[in-house]
């Protein structure tokens, strides 16, 4: 018996929907196996991870808080990945966005105008955009791998933040802790629903979804992104510049990550600290792919992954497992999503061994995968 992977003549619309669900199912099964291996009750483990967080109102709020940066960053990254440009450094762009956005509350703590927050958001987006334009420029000008340069710039950004917090940005009344002062009220992202932690960042993320959808489906710029990603030679034939698309998508995704960064700093955190995110910029890569680079699906993917963050925290308390379990679940999910995506373009066929009755001459033939690919 052998297994063949055959290219489908046309992509399967059924599989486009079923593949992420299949991946989630396989992740749950694998998760159960891991729980068993750790000596925990698998059903209870999965319950703690994926169901319990949904049973209380405050955890659902928390879900929204965590999903907002994931969705925002993943929306931007989906543009890059559609164009076959690999921005892995959203975490750094997130950090830089938080830094540039924080300049006003750090240096002008007395300024309480309605203009403060919009200005901070613009500056945050600009900071992320700038940080993302570095690997894009290096790629276009020198052919340097954007995967490596964007990733390395994450660590540069984090150390830059570290330095700022020990020096120029340090809270003068902060007892020498490496933190900025708490942002003034005008520099905080307003709460959306009273008595919750849900802020208007949620609205911004949800408004971005149709904007990205419109960009991709209806504009020439979005068309260029898809053509460059799907058929670079045809893109050049159509007169679309691959370099412009790479730079453009990097800048856009950097701006989204930077915006997410300042929304986080001026939102739930209220100040800059050495650790701004539990790896939102990296986890958003998974969100983008679980959402199959589709802006609407990314919303659901963002909620799902946010759930695994909460599950990780709950598992720490209820099951006494490391919160790193959340990372394991996210990694396993990404693995299955990428594997299952193969099924959209290909189908799997299981070929039985030749029936003995009909194969006297070639019965001894070695079975090899067919060569017509």
């Amino acid at each position: 018996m052998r297994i063949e992977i055959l290219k489908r003549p046309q992509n399967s619309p059924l599989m486009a929907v079923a593949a992420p669900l299949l991946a989630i199912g396989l992740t749950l099964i694998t998760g159960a196996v891991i729980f068993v291996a750790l000596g925990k009750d698998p059903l209870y483990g999965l319950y703690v991870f994926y169901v319990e967080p949904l049973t209380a109102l405050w955890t659902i709020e928390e879900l929204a808080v965590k999903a907002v940066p994931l969705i925002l960053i993943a929306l931007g990254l989906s543009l890059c990945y559609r164009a076959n440009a690999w921005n892995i450094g959203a975490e750094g762009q997130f950090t830089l966005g938080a830094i540039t956005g924080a300049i006003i509350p750090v240096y002008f703590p007395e300024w309480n105008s309605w203009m403060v927050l919009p200005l901070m958001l613009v500056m945050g987006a600009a900071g992320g955009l700038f940080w993302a334009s570095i690997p894009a420029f290096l790629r276009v000008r020198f052919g340097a791998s954007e995967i490596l340069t964007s990733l390395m710039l994450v660590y540069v950004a984090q150390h830059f933040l570290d330095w700022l917090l020990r020096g120029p940005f340090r809270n003068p009344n902060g007892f020498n802790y490496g933190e900025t002062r708490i942002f003034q009220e005008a520099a905080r992202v307003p709460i959306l629903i009273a008595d919750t932690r849900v802020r208007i960042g949620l609205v911004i993320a949800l408004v971005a979804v149709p904007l990205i959808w419109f960009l991709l489906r209806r504009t020439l710029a979005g068309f260029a992104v898809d053509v460059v990603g799907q058929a670079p030679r045809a893109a050049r034939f159509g007169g679309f510049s691959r370099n412009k698309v790479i730079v453009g998508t990097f800048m856009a995704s950097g701006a989204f990550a930077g915006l997410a960064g300042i929304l986080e700093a001026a939102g739930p955190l209220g100040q800059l600290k050495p650790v701004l995110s539990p790896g939102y910029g990296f986890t958003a890569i998974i969100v983008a792919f679980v959402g199959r680079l589709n802006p609407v699906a990314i919303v659901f993917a963002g909620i799902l992954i946010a759930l695994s963050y909460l599950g990780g925290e709950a598992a720490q308390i209820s099951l006494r497992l490391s919160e790193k379990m959340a990372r394991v679940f996210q990694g396993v999910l990404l693995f299955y999503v990428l594997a299952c995506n193969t099924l959209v373009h290909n189908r799997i066929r299981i070929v039985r061994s030749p029936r003995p009755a009909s194969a006297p001459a070639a019965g001894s033939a070695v079975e090899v995968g067919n060569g017509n690919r």
Partner: protein
Amino acid sequence: MSEALLSAQGIGKRFGSVVANEAVDLTLRAGEIHALLGENGAGKSTLVKILYGALLPDTGTISWEGQPVRLTSPAAARRLGIGMVFQHFSLFEALTVGENIALSLGGGERMKALGKRIAALSGQYGLPVDPDKVIADLSVGERQRVEVVRCLLQDPKLIILDEPTSVLTPQEAEELFGVLGRLAGEGRAILYISHRLEEVRRIAQRATVMRRGRVVGTCDPRTETTRTLARMMIGSDLTSVVAPVPPGESAPVRLAVRGLSLARGIPFGVDLEDISVEVRAGEVVGIAGVAGNGQNELFQALAGERGSMPPGTVEVDGKDAAGLGITERRRLGLAFVPEERLGHGVVPDMRLSQNVVLTRHRTDPELRRGVTINVDEARAVAARVVYRFGVRAGEDDPVAGALSGGNVQKFQVGREIDRRPAVLVINQPTWGIDAGAAVVVRQAIVDLARTGSAVLMISQDLDEIFEISDRVGVMADGRLTPLQPTAELTPEAIGLMMAGMNAAESPAPADAH
């Protein structure tokens, strides 16, 4: 007549909803040259892949020398004695002939011994092949000889050749026919796949004709005419292209290429050397030549895909286009149809309307509203092209990859002609498409020219060159001969130009690196 060497009964094969083969019967006898005829998409390739073990049939049985067999892999087929020469060569350009052959044989034979075997075989069949030459230095005809030799080294009883003459000059084809005759004389069976009816009539003793996945008849092609064979293949009489009288010398020059030289952009590419050609309003100029002699480089240079060129080397209606990119050239009135359809001319996973936007977004203001795409207009253009050029599409506005090769070609030619361009540059307009679609495409090219446009057609199909081009030049080794009226030339004369310059310019034996 001897008994059947290979017999296939009731072969069926489906791909999803597409029936590629249904109830196909085929019998091959030792010592015969058997032609497999059919249009593109008739199911020839599927049948051949099944016979070579690259595909498993859904239904049917295959017998080899009277014994039922199951061909589960090409290796199994080779062990039985079935060899195949593919249309698209599978050779590593950077390796030598001997190394390429050694790779496919897979055994632990020493290179020296293998070299001797290759030399002996090539002497025996009149297939001159030097085992120490690097593939990249060989012409297409020589590469095919390497493929044939590689196949013969396994001493096959059945040799399958897929469209072997499509890449050869008339003289090279002649030599191949001689070799095939010798092989058949030794008692080997030859399955010869072609859609060139003249050839088949000359060399084959039997022909099996396929249409839409089924066998529609078996005949002795020597007793048939080209017309009767064509009717079996297509199912109806083929209309021919109507070409009115070409314009005189007084017609204005619309495309002028002057002294264009361009160094190769990729390893194993071809340098263009001092290319000059003028195309007048109303005429079709054909560029003949064996593939790989600079035609693709010329196309890319004219399309502006290779960056800017010295001023004055390309002019459209008297305006210098040499420094312009592809979009600006299109705005001057140029239109391009590349040889590769999927991935170059069209994006396979995009809909026809999106593929309209691909090449026309800067020339058709109606396709845009500010920065957004006018989707309705794009759909309307796509529907117009589908209707006018008879593109057979299963649904409204399908993705391009869902169409057959001939229909994609009708679409991408129609997409450009629908713009009414001043100059159309088209590379291999009917390569790999069925005869019906080819007539549509050729007629559209002629009609476009006769309305006052200029057409530069690069083609390696000599029949096509003679059918629709008014003047012709030959490309060999990156150079172009001066244009001559097609009516004053014969295929043999063009063949000599294709080969002659090749021989004169062929590099000294390359050192093995």
